[in-house]
C-alpha cells in the first residue's frame, strides 16, 4: 500500500501564470441550467463527423443515440434531454466555425439531471470488476461516445482498446489541471473519488496496463490527500500511485506529464502509445465508470464557469448542448467589465463572439475575462518588434524556437518553419504569454500549421 508522496521530475520550460483557482475551487459541483434549446454538435471529437440517426420531428429520449459514424476514429453523440428534434442544421462551433448539429427542444417539464448524488454511494463498494470483460468495457466506452474531456477530444475507445502493434503497459491519469481558473477536474477528484477510482480500474482492465499513475500538481494538496486515503482504503488498488508534480503550466500537457511522472520523452511527432503509455483525463475516467457501470452515455459533464466578469462563478454539471449564453445567464450573467468570453481556460481556450455556441464534450470551462485580466497591451494587441530576447525559447516546453518559426510563417517560408520543427508545437501558448513585445507567436505557429495542412491537402481550402 503506497501512501508515500511520490514527487515527479520537472519538464524544461513552462510558465507560471496566476492560478486564479480560488474563484471556484471551493464551489461544489451543482446542477446546471434547465436547457431551453439543446444544440448537440455532431462533431465533438477528433475524427469523422457523425451522421444524424434522427430526423426533424423525431421524439428522443434522454440518452438516445442521435448521431453515429462507422469510422474507426469517431464517437457517437446522444441526446442529453427528452424532447423533439426541431432542426438539423449548421451551427457555430468553437473550433470548426460552422458544423452540423442536432437541435432538440425539451418537453415542457423535465427535471434537470442532478450530478448523481447516488453515484458516490453506488461506487462506494467493490464494484465487482470481474463482472465486466475487457471487450465489454471497450464496447461500453465506444457506445457511450466517450472522448478525451481535457480538450483534444480523441475517442477514448480507440485509446484504451488493446492494440497488438502497440501494447500498453502504463496508464497516467491526468489530474494536473494546469490551466488557470479551471477547477472541474479538481472537484471531480474531491467529490467523485470512488467513481474516479472505479473508472481507473475499468480503464486499466480494458487497456491491460500493469501500472497506473495519477499525476496531480502540488497546488492541490486536498485532492492528493483524498485520493491517497481512498486508494489506501480500497482493496486491489496497489498498482495505482499518486504522483505529485510541480505546479507549472503546461504540466497537464500529456508530453510534459509523461516527462514529469516517468521521466520519459515521447518521440517528436509520435504519440504516447508508441512508448506503451496512455494518458487519460480525470473527467474522462469518471465518464468511463458512468458508462460501464450505469450504462449512461456521455451527455453531461462538469463545466467550470469562471472569470472575474462572472457574477456567480462555480462548477456545474451541465448538459452537453447547452448554449453558452444560457450557461452564463444561469450563473447570474456577466458584469459590465467583460471583455472576452473564452471556451476553455485563458491559455489554450478559444475566444468566441457568438454565445449561441453550445457546451461540447470537451468544454471544461467557460472563462469570462475582463480587460484588466487580459492586460492592457495584450487587449489592444499592441505588438512591438521582436528584440530577440529568447524568452520564448526558454519557456517552450518542447524546446522549439518559436520566434524563428513565427518569423518564417510571417514571411510565408513554410520550409524554414518546418526546418525548425513547426509540427512539434503543442500550441500551449507559453511563448505568447511570456513575450515582452506581445507578439502572438502561438497564433503565427497555428497559422503556419494550417497552411502546411492545406499544402498537403489534409484540410480543404
Amino acid at each position, binding site marked *: 500500500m503506497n501512501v508515500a508522496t511520490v514527487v515527479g521530475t520537472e519538464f*524544461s520550460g513552462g510558465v507560471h501564470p496566476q492560478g486564479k483557482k480560488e474563484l471556484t475551487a471551493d464551489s461544489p459541483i451543482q446542477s446546471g441550467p434547465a436547457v431551453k434549446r439543446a444544440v448537440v454538435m455532431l462533431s465533438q471529437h477528433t475524427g469523422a463527423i457523425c451522421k444524424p440517426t434522427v430526423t426533424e420531428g423525431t421524439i428522443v429520449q434522454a440518452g438516445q443515440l442521435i448521431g453515429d459514424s462507422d469510422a474507426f476514429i469517431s464517437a457517437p453523440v446522444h441526446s442529453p434531454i427528452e424532447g423533439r428534434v426541431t432542426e438539423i442544421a449548421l451551427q457555430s462551433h468553437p473550433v470548426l466555425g460552422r458544423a452540423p448539429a442536432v437541435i432538440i427542444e425539451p418537453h415542457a417539464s423535465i427535471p434537470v439531471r442532478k450530478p448523481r448524488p447516488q453515484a458516490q454511494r453506488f461506487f462506494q463498494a467493490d464494484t465487482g470488476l470481474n463482472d465486466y470483460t475487457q471487450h465489454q468495457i471497450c464496447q461500453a466506452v465506444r457506445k457511450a461516445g466517450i472522448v478525451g474531456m481535457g480538450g483534444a477530444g480523441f475517442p477514448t475507445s480507440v485509446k484504451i482498446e488493446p492494440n497488438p502493434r502497440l501494447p500498453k503497459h502504463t496508464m497516467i491519469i491526468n489530474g494536473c489541471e494546469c490551466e488557470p481558473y479551471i477547477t472541474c477536474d479538481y472537484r471531480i477528484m474531491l467529490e467523485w473519488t470512488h467513481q474516479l477510482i472505479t473508472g481507473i480500474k475499468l480503464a486499466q482492465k480494458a487497456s491491460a496496463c500493469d501500472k497506473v499513475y495519477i499525476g496531480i500538481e502540488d497546488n492541490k494538496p486536498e485532492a492528493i490527500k483524498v485520493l491517497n486515503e481512498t486508494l489506501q482504503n480500497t482493496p486491489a488498488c496497489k498498482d495505482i500511485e499518486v504522483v505529485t508534480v510541480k505546479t507549472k503550466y503546461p504540466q497537464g500537457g500529456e508530453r510534459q506529464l509523461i516527462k514529469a511522472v516517468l521521466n520519459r520523452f515521447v518521440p517528436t511527432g509520435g504519440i504516447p502509445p508508441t512508448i506503451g503509455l496512455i494518458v487519460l483525463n480525470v473527467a474522462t475516467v469518471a465518464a468511463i465508470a458512468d458508462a460501464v457501470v450505469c450504462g449512461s452515455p456521455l451527455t453531461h459533464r462538469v463545466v467550470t464557469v469562471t472569470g472575474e466578469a462572472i457574477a456567480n462563478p462555480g462548477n456545474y454539471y451541465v448538459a452537453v448542448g447547452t448554449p453558452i449564453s444560457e450557461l452564463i445567464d444561469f450563473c447570474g450573467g*456577466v458584469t459590465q467589465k467583460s*471583455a472576452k468570453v473564452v471556451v476553455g481556460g*485563458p491559455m489554450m481556450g478559444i*475566444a468566441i463572439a457568438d454565445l449561441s455556441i453550445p457546451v461540447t464534450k470537451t468544454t471544461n470551462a467557460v472563462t469570462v475575462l475582463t480587460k484588466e485580466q487580459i492586460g492592457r497591451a*495584450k487587449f489592444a494587441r499592441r505588438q*512591438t518588434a521582436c528584440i530577440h530576447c529568447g524568452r520564448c*525559447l526558454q519557456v517552450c516546453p518542447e524546446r522549439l*524556437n518559436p520566434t524563428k518559426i513565427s518569423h518564417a510563417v510571417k514571411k510565408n517560408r513554410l520550409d524554414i518553419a518546418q526546418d525548425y520543427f513547426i509540427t*512539434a508545437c503543442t500550441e500551449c501558448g507559453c511563448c505568447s504569454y511570456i513575450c515582452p513585445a506581445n507578439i502572438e507567436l502561438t497564433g503565427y505557429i497555428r497559422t503556419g500549421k494550417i497552411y502546411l495542412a492545406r499544402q498537403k491537402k489534409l484540410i480543404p481550402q
Partner: protein
Amino acid sequence: MLSKLTVSCAPHIGGPFSTRRVMVDVIIALAPAMLAACYFFHAYALILLPTCVLSCVITEYLCNLLRRNEKPLESLGDFSAVITGIILAMSLPPAIPFWAVIIGSAVSIAIGKMVFGGLGSNIFNPAMVGRAFLTASFGMLMTTWTVPATIDKTMPQVSAASPDAITQATPLGHSKQAIKQAKAPDKTAASQAQLVNSQLKNLFVGSTSGCLGETSKLALLLGGIYLLIRQVINWRIPFAVLLSAFVFASIPWLINPSRYISPIAHLTTGGILLCAFFIATDPVTAPLTGKGAWIFGAGVGAITILIRVVGEYPEGVMYAVLLMNSVTPLIDRLCKLTPVGGKPNV
C-alpha cells in the same frame, strides 16, 4: 449585460514582461555606473551623459519623421534609444568635445539602428557602431584620456617627454607599451606591466583613467548582478565573456609574467565588464540559443584579449563585439535546438 467582446487567438492573458520594462531594468542597472562616472569625472559625466542620451533620442525621432512613421514618438517609448545613449557615453573618453558626441550619437541611432528598420532589426550594437565611427574619424579625440578628479597620483605618465596636467595613459595603454617594448632590453616595460598589476584595487573601484563608464568595475558588477537577478539578460553571455577573457589572458601571462599584465588585471581594466554585462548582452545582436550564447561570449572575450595583446589598439572590446555581432546569424543557424522528443523521423 455583455459589452463588446474581443476575439483573438490563445493565450488570452499575458505575462508581466514588456519591452519597456526590460529596458527600464537595464537603465536601473546602469545607474551605479553612471553615479560612479559622475563621482570620478564630475562635470565631464554631467555633460556627456545627457548630451548622448538627448542626441540619440532626437535622432530616433528625426529618423521616424523621415520614414514617415505615423506615430514618430511611439518608438521612443521603449527607451532603447536612451540605453544606446548611455552606453555610448560610457564608452567615450570623458573629455571628448560635445560636437563629436552629437555626431557619434546620430551615427549610432541612424546608421546603427534605424537604417536596418529600428529596434530588433539591427545587426550591430548601435552604441558600438557610433563609437567605431568616432574612433575611425577622430582618432586623436578618442585616445585622450582625462585624469579622474580623484586620481591616484602614483600612476605615471606614458612618456616623460609629454607631461600633461590633465591627461594620462589608461592602464591598458601601459600594458600595450609594455608589450611593444618587450623586445628592447628595457626595464620600463616590465615595470609598466607590474605597475598595472599593482593597482588592482584602484582599477576595481574606478580611480583610474579610461572611458567614462568603464572605470568603476564595482559599479558595473552591481548593475550586472541586478540584471542577472532580474533575469533580464542571458547569464551565459557575461560568464562566457569573462571566462574566455580570463583564459586567453592567462596564456601570455603564464609565458612571461613580467611583460604581460595578469588576467585579473585584464578583467579589471578597460571595458570588458561593461561589455560583458551591458554591451554583448544586447539581445537584438546576440544569439538566441544557450549554446549560441556561450560561443558568442567566448568569441567576444577571446577577440578582446587578442586585440589587447597582439593587435595595435590597447583596447579591443568594441571590435570584438562588432565582429561577433556580424556572425550572430551564423551562430544561430549553427546552434539549432533539437526538440525534447528528439528529431522527428521524417
